[in-house]
């Protein structure tokens, strides 16, 4: 079995398109996940009564079911109830639904590791609630939450590979497509790995950099 470099060169552009789709879905999915995470983490740390229970239920459902099934449900199941969302919408909502719980946990952990004495110091220094949040709590919480959040970003970008199941042309879709049409499994998988490395390595490196940047103990 010969490795066909020409095939690789010829179809690399497809993977560029695929990567754009992967990024599109991931970026919006992750933004949604961060937003959902922020809301849930906020609700949990502020201990808002009923909302807190709801957030818990959501987190349990989201964490304990696979994205593929969530997507099938959104894409093929919901239309039976008369709700037809486009594949993009389903993918972004699905990723946000899954990622929201993971982000919430990472952010909550970030806030909870801040010693109580930090808020108390702010209190005796006369800072008001908003000042305490923005000048004392958040700057530190960002630092402690960054590793978890970055790990989740990588995890979600990877998870986005299942959106090909609902006909979205991401990199995984391209790979399966080329395998199906031209039977060049080998070359397609190679391109797939390269594509993911190109997308994820910078994220991984940026994560390490961010971790340093916000770690006041080490920079």
């Amino acid at each position: 079995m010969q490795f066909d470099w020409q095939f690789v060169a010829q179809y690399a552009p497809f993977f560029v398109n695929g990567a754009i789709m992967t990024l599109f879905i991931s970026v919006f999915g992750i933004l949604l996940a961060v937003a959902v995470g922020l809301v849930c983490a906020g609700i949990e740390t502020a201990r808002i009564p009923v909302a807190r229970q709801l957030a818990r239920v959501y987190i349990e459902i989201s964490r304990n079911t696979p994205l593929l099934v969530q997507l099938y449900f959104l894409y093929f199941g919901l239309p039976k109830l008369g709700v037809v969302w486009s594949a993009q919408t389903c993918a972004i909502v699905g990723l946000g639904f899954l990622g929201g719980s993971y982000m919430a946990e990472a952010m909550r952990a970030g806030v909870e590791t801040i010693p109580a004495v930090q808020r108390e110091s702010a209190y005796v220094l006369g800072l008001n609630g908003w000042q305490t949040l923005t000048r004392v709590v958040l700057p530190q919480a960002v630092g402690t939450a960054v590793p978890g959040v970055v790990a989740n970003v990588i995890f979600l970008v990877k998870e986005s590979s299942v959106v090909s199941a609902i006909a979205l042309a991401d990199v995984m879709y391209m790979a399966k497509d080329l395998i199906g049409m031209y039977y060049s499994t080998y070359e397609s998988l190679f391109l797939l790995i390269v594509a993911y490395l190109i997308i994820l390595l910078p994220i991984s490196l940026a994560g390490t950099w961010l971790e340093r940047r916000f770690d006041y103990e080490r920079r």
Partner: protein
Amino acid sequence: MTDENTIVDRTAAPAATGSTQRSTAAVAASDKATATSCTVECSGFEIAHLTKRYANADRPVLNDISFTLPHGKVLVVVGPSGSGKSTLLRTVAGLEPIQGGTISINGQVIETGRPGTEKAGRSKRSTALRTRIGMVFQSYDLFPNRTVLGNITMSPILVQKRDRAEVEQEALALLERVGLADRRDAWPHELSGGQRQRVAICRALILHPEVLLFDEVTAALDPEMVREVLDVMIELADQGQTMMIVTHEMQFARAIADKVILLEDGGIVEESDDAERFFTHPETERAQRFLHTFEFDRHR
């Protein structure tokens, strides 16, 4: 400002910086900014019938505590672990709601106890009022995301809206006095424990608090660092800073105290206005037993 021996240099405090600043070394008569009907007699700090309970606890942690602390004096609170020393300081600082009694400064009541507030969270007192009471904790209380200077200047700039340049100048003067002028741009994690606590003291001092609270500020430090910090506190006492100190260093307590309170199970067991006498000839049997814990007899 060149007097190396003066930690709290009153001339360094700017004249017109709003009602939240007050002179502590001077007697209350010169305390023009205070809006209360305070006279010379009521100058100082007073706690009356203070009662505090934690939620889900069967009995109060602090039960009907009353005492006064005249302006410029140092009160040391001692007592066994769990007797309520930290809780007492925390209620004064407004960190814990109280369920009975009052806390007043210079005759002005700043906190009134209300039953059923066990779960109420921190006191809602105004930020201006809060800055009149300073507090230094056992440890980890510098903000790790600010430099030394940033930690000290944060509250005057943000809360008191004072001028940055002027605040920084005062901060530097304070740092100089605790021997840390060269560390102004260091990050907290780059400092030793003793240095951190000295910065924390500066951070409290820059607000010119009327009372300064210290809760076992040296408990986590090595002996030499303990000394660095305690020396600063002794100097503050000499300058006439009103202070409430919780400590387990009996030698130090004896050296710095004007007044001593022995707490046990949330009540005052012995109160003495003659600190020296308390440490040498305690009146109650409980105080004798307590102090004995810190004495060792040559064994053979």
